């Protein structure tokens, strides 16, 4: 029981932390340049939209869990694999220097410049500030919402644990953010992205195979061996990339 909850909560917390840090950079850029009222309301509205998305997609998965158990494991396994492989690939490319590291400070400066260029009418409701923040929370949070639904699909308690992980990450990010009032560039985003990618890939393989009615030799303990194999493959991949491109390439993520 504890393992099931931890499996849902830990990756959800880490994935959410990465995404909230990215959203926070934009929110703090809006707040510092245009005032805090609109970005706070924009953030709250974005979170409310995400809650609706989790409720809409999460509720049927839990309600019909027992009736479609096998097919359900397959769907969740495939979803986790698609997310996990994507995060893992990107993190490995960043570790190897092929893709440029996500620079929160640089993004902050770019956002501030763009927001300043929009101009400000202090006497009126700040539409731009609202939409910038709403969009940041919604777009970064969409990934969190899908990960929460996929990890929580094991049942009601797992969904609660996954939601709790995401909410805790939001609380941690905003608490730190409220103190420092600048981008949280000290957070090791790429390492966390790698950990989440490795975990999601591991769970995807495990649950996906269970959907094929495979019995793993050590049951849940097999997760550790799969995770070890994923990490080992990643180390081999980073070494391989270092041989192919010793100086790296630093290509922007969207161009790869």
């Amino acid at each position: 029981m504890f393992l099931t909850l931890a499996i849902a909560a830990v990756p959800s917390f880490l994935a959410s932390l990465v995404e909230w840090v990215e959203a926070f950079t934009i929110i703090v850029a809006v707040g510092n340049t245009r005032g805090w009222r609109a970005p706070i309301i924009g953030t709250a509205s974005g979170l409310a939209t995400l809650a609706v998305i989790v409720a809409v997609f999460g509720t049927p998965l839990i309600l019909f869990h027992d009736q479609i158990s096998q097919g359900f494991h397959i769907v969740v396994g495939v979803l986790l694999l698609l997310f996990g492989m994507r995060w893992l690939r990107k993190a490995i490319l960043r570790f190897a220097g092929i893709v440029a590291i996500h620079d929160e400070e640089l993004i902050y400066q770019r956002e501030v410049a763009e927001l300043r260029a929009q101009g400000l009418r202090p006497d009126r409701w700040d539409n731009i500030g609202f939409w910038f923040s709403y969009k940041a929370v919604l777009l970064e949070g969409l990934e969190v919402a899908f990960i929460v639904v996929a990890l929580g699909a094991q049942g009601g308690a797992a969904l609660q644990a996954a939601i709790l992980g995401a909410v805790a990450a939001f609380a941690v990010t905003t608490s730190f953010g409220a103190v420092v009032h600048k981008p949280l560039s000290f957070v090791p985003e790429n390492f966390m992205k790698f950990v989440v990618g490795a975990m999601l890939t591991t769970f995807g393989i495990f649950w996906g195979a269970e959907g094929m009615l495979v019995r793993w030799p050590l049951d849940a303990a097999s997760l550790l061996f799969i995770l070890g194999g994923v990490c080992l493959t990643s180390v081999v991949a980073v070494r391989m990339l270092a041989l192919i491109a010793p100086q790296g390439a630093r290509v922007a993520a969207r161009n790869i």
Partner: protein
Amino acid sequence: MNLLASAWEQVYGLLVEDGQIAIGTLAAFVAAFAWSVLVGEELRDSAGPLLFVLLMTLLLVNLYTTGRKAHAKRTGH
């Protein structure tokens, strides 16, 4: 409209940012599933390790080609 387009782009990107990885992951899953059905009950449990091997091979091949492409782009040949 702009927000909807960004949201769609984001959802699409969530699953298929890199076409080769996304299609390859689905193909690996289908191959392991077909194996589990075709080999019968005795060997069915080998579909799990098979899925693992297929996915890790896919990851290495994808990263190799991506690394080669990025290096060629950088050095101009």
